[in-house]
């Protein structure tokens, strides 16, 4: 799940300056779960923008805004409303915004900040556990990712800031190496901690990422 959060209304309004007519676009997947760009948020945004003197030409919640073909098709189904607008306000992640912007020369305003790939702890509570590093080491680390959970991404054990098994950057949070140690110990696999892990291959996460599945 891509975790996103709505930008403050003041920021959205300032981005919409000079655009009197606005078409609203949401996403039915991640942005809906994050309560940032689903049906409900599109409705609230419509109210807020109307109150601020904007004219809303129409709106749509795309099933998966990151799906470029589907996004293009859905927008064509609302062609007239889109044409009428001075700007498209997209309440979807950065990928969703770019599905939209790639299909139209119109001014596209990003209404969300895209934060991370997140797990859902419970409704409305998200946590980053994977940083999409392209070189998964979870098998070696008891199924807990130090690349992501350690603020320094350390691969060979805790830093000097570990205090009673807690992280120097957040005393409330357990050090990920403490968690890994506990897990491996319970599994009788603590020997894994003796292995020196070589420098990470960051070329696996060079931007922009591309993948084409070969048949």
């Amino acid at each position, binding site marked *: 799940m891509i975790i996103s959060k709505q930008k403050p209304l003041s920021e959205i309004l300032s981005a919409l300056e000079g655009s009197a007519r606005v078409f609203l676009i949401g996403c039915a997947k991640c942005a809906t779960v994050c309560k940032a760009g689903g049906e409900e948020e599109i409705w609230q945004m419509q109210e807020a923008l109307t109150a601020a003197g904007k004219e809303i030409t129409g709106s749509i919640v795309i099933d998966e805004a990151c799906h470029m073909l589907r996004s293009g098709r859905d927008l064509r189904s609302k062609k007239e409303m889109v044409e009428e607008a001075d700007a498209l306000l997209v309440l979807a992640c950065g990928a969703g915004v770019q599905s939209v912007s790639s299909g139209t020369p119109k001014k596209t305003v990003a209404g969300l900040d895209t934060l991370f790939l997140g797990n859902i702890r419970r409704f409305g509570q998200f946590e980053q556990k994977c940083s999409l590093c392209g070189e998964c080491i979870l098998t070696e680390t008891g199924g807990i990712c130090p690349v992501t959970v350690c603020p320094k991404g*350390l691969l060979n*054990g805790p830093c000097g800031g570990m205090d009673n098994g807690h992280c120097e950057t957040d005393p409330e949070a357990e050090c990920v190496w403490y968690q890994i140690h506990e897990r491996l110990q319970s599994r009788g696999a603590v020997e894994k901690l003796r292995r020196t892990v070589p420098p990470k291959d960051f070329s696996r996460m060079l931007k922009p990422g591309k993948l084409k599945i070969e048949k």
Partner: protein
Amino acid sequence: MLQQKLDSGGFAITAEVCPPKGSDCGEFLEKSRALQGCVDAINVTDNQGANMRISPLAAASLLTREGIEPIFQITCRDRNRLALQSDLLGAAALGIRNILALTGDHISFGDHQNAKPVFDLDSVQLLQTIAALSEGKDLSGNALQGKPSFYAGAAAAPEAEPFPLTLYKLEKKAAAGARFFQTQAVFDPEKLRFFSETVRPFNVKIIAGIFLLKSAGMARYVNRHIPGLKVPSPLIEELEGAADQLAKGTEIAGRLAAQARLHCDGVHIMAMGREDLIPEILKAVKREL
């Protein structure tokens, strides 16, 4: 020289002097010169606490020009593997041999909190890098012109819990080429004895961190805010009851340093801006020598 002192079984004394925030190194050099007679080497910190200061490579080089032996502290926080290797080679060319290889405090502690933290390598991998350079190869296996000579050390936290977890990493640091451990400040000689006995098999020299507590208030602050540092309450009470807390703190630091002499190969004094008191702290150690 630091390495010769340690290798020959001598008791090494190092101290920390923080390079300036700015390009005027006058005060830094003055403090360092004042210590020249009583320490074997001076640690030059690297954007300590993630607060931006002059490059430790430049500051260490200024010390070598003065005939003062520096320990160049280098962290992984602000440099990727190209920059780390390039600075290490630069250090070697400038006559700087002693390296303390550190992970580095997190960006969120410092004065540039919006900066991008690097951490391309960790401290174990940095030690491996130093070993590779010393063999005349860079991290990609390319041959270097000349083989730099380094004396590399690493940090250790004797009071960190759970200790077995930190021990794995210390063993890796030793295997990666650390020749000395400079410890986090320790206030309990018993902890230092235990630490020293535990890591003895790694065959690494131990330089004990000694921290000057300038007042009882500072001791309490350290306990609350500095991860891994634990000032025992009897020490805080001792400071509290003293008419002159700074003098008492100096006496305590001297006592801890003298006790460290029993278990370690050296002491590293962190005087927190009162470097002028280091000779006084060291009197207690020298009496033992």
